[in-house]
């Protein structure tokens, strides 16, 4: 993943080779099987890890939105993703102790993109605006959840608030910010890609 510098923006792209490399690391080096329990453990975490279809993550949103509507359902998914992103970034930060302080934010963001791709959530490019600390995570082929949702037909609302939460939690730890993230493009709405942008506060008259 190589940063491309512009005036105030940094862009971190992840190549296909890097995505594959991260998949190998995450799935083979860091995943352990406990045969006695019939459970998997990842990266030494005491919490078991399972393989789950991306469509089932989408189902959490879909089932809940049928009961309480999209916006509250969106926030539930977002909060769960947020905890995951925040926890993942906090854990990953310990591997950057040798990195100069001024480079930690960018390195940690890059690591977020790598982990997401390696774990199968989708390959993304990340843009960081150093002046505003705003971030934009673009998944040119969509996220795994978005693609799974699209198989059910085109939706009116975006399908990946869980990923938006991960992006928000990860970015806030990396940048020391308290930003929100919303999905502004989603393959499940018929768009070509999934794009997540940070904002200081979501306004719903511009409902996305």
């Amino acid at each position: 993943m190589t940063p491309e510098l512009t005036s105030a923006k940094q862009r971190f792209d992840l190549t296909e080779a890097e995505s594959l490399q991260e998949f190998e690391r995450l799935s083979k080096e860091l995943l352990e099987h406990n045969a006695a329990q019939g459970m998997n453990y990842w990266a030494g975490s005491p919490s078991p890890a399972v393989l789950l279809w991306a469509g089932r993550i989408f189902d959490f949103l879909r089932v809940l939105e049928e009961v309480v509507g999209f916006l509250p359902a969106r926030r539930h998914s977002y909060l769960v993703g947020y905890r995951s992103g925040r926890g993942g970034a906090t854990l990953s930060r310990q591997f950057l102790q040798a990195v100069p302080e001024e480079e930690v934010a960018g390195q940690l963001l890059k690591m977020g993109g790598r982990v997401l791709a390696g774990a199968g959530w989708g390959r993304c490019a990340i843009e960081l605006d150093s002046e505003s600390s705003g971030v934009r995570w673009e998944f040119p082929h969509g996220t795994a959840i978005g693609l799974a949702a699209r198989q059910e037909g085109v939706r009116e609302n975006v399908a990946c608030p869980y990923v938006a939460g991960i992006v928000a939690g990860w970015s806030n730890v990396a940048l020391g910010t308290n930003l929100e993230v919303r999905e502004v493009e989603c393959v499940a709405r018929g768009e070509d890609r999934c794009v997540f942008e940070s904002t200081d506060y979501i306004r719903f008259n511009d409902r996305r």
Partner: protein
Amino acid sequence: MTPETVFLESEALVAANVQAPASVVETLHRQLNVLREVQGFLSAVIARPDGLTIHHTLRKPHEAALLCAIAAAMVGSSRQAARELSRGGFVHGMLHFEEGTLLVAEAGSEAILACMVAPETNVGHALLVIKRLVPRIEEVLAQL
């Protein structure tokens, strides 16, 4: 549910809480004080339609976060019910508990107002105050 579990769930709600712009919050603080005129007033929150806390009168932020999430779910499920039953839009909601009544109303596209009052409260009067307050909150949040 153990107290510890409640804390952890609340922590999850509060962790991703962003703040509405300070100028807006200051105005909303004055608006919410109007509700203190209602005899039996206990607490009130202004929540975003997705359940995020915008402003509240409670002592503990995690209690406000829970009430906001509940209010948003109430409005959302009421809307779903209205749609299924072809009964138009949501106007207001009221839940009577043994030890209080929760009144919920929408304040435009950006907010929900939820107010908890004591059991003996004149609910009609409380709703009247809420009805007057809603357009003012809507106006404030239109500045966002």
